[in-house]
């Protein structure tokens, strides 16, 4: 079973960047909503009292604290859409791309202790794990291990 990401890589540059908000709320329902610019972005304010670059807004009366985030270095943000999940040959189509988005927290200044920030550390950890090991380093390690065994015995 496989899913094809059905788009040409060259398409990426032609797309207009999308505006994304990462909201700290579960929303039941998908699709077109109100005019976000008019009803949400309009109320975004700088809040220097919470720190550099911190933004405030509110969602249904609940205070939000946020900041601009960019997609991790070496990555591109893509929004993909599955047209029909019931098909035998599943496909994802490209909706748009983004390099920045606004990360919102409910009532908490975004910081390194947020789950999202910690998840990004995993990207670097995964990279370290994927790093190929050289033949010489491997031989060296096995030699050391043999020596340690002899000393113990």
């Amino acid at each position, binding site marked *: 079973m496989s*899913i*094809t990401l059905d788009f040409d890589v060259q398409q990426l540059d032609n797309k207009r960047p*999308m505006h994304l908000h990462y909201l700290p709320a*579960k929303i039941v329902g998908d699709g077109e909503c109100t005019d976000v610019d008019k009803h949400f972005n309009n109320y975004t304010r700088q809040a220097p009292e919470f720190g550099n670059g911190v933004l405030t807004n509110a969602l249904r009366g609940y205070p939000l604290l946020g900041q601009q985030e960019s997609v991790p270095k070496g*990555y*591109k943000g893509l929004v993909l859409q599955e047209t029909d999940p019931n098909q035998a040959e599943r496909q994802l189509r490209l909706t748009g791309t983004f390099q920045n988005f606004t990360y919102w927290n409910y009532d908490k200044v975004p910081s390194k202790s947020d789950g999202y920030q910690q998840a990004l550390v995993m990207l670097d*950890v995964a990279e370290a794990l994927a790093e190929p090991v050289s033949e010489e380093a491997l031989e060296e*390690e096995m030699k050391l291990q043999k020596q340690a065994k002899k000393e113990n015995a």
Partner: protein
Amino acid sequence: MNKKATRSTKPKPDPDAAPQKQAVCAVKKVFFIADNLLQAEDGADRMRLERFYHPGKGQPAWFITHHDCQIMEMLEYGEPRRSWLLNNEVCSNGRTYMTTPLDATLLALHHLRKHCSQRAMSLDSISVDASDASTNRLLTKFVTAAGLKCVADVKASGDLVFYKYNPQRTLAWLTLKTRGVVAVLKAKQVHCGLGAKSQNYVRSEKLVSENDVNEMDYLRMACDYVGRYLDADLHEELTRYLQIPSEIQALVEEKSSAQKRKSQQGQPSANSKKIKLANGEDAASQLRNSSLLDSDDGKDSITSPPTPAPLKERTMTAKEKALAKGAKGSKSIASFFKAK
């Protein structure tokens, strides 16, 4: 009557409307895709999400492939209450899908251990044994010869190459991988100790004491991370190979060292104050007997001052004793409810 009618008619339009709406805007997903997958060389070739057996999970998982040679893992980040706002659209799926680099040798390791621990086999013949085609695809397309050389003995005969699983090489290879992970965890200042800590607290504390950072905690965390890609028994083997004590043992050690006062830490026999308990046992032996400590930690516990924990336990047992004495001769409560 009238009310009832409106109730039953009201939900009617909904089931018709809902599927229509869904058809218009099908579920969208937010991806972080690595730049090296997005290099435009050959426009006709598409990236694909495929399922391969994931040894750590014990079941197939999603991976992203490109050009029939690049492979990356598809990680999913989600919080319980998150959603995306994409331009003017709500996306209830608050997950972010990230591609992370992956050494396909880790995936091949499972198949090598399964089939090639006794005899050398060619990659094609391993795949024949397996029931699905994904193993064949994984081993022939994405696993590199250089990677396999790190975990197996290679024997070439003419055009055919045979592999035999080599445990020593594999463990040494995994050790090097684990060290690489340790280096990153340290560089990123990830807190690997036991228990949770506030990020802010750690930061300010660091200026005062750097000895908070325990080498073994980093190694354990890294080993656990590497272990997420290994069969469970190989993970255990690696833990033993790296001589990582179990977490419970470490907890006990940390506890006993935390109990020591700083002035007492250097001088093991300095502590002469032993609080006598009612039955004449001193606190150190009490602690030793209370199974809080392993027997080999006995030396350590002598130096540690008595803790409230064992004392509390004693009063509890006395209370229990009194209760037991009072309850002597009385019927068990269960006997009242027995069928006669």
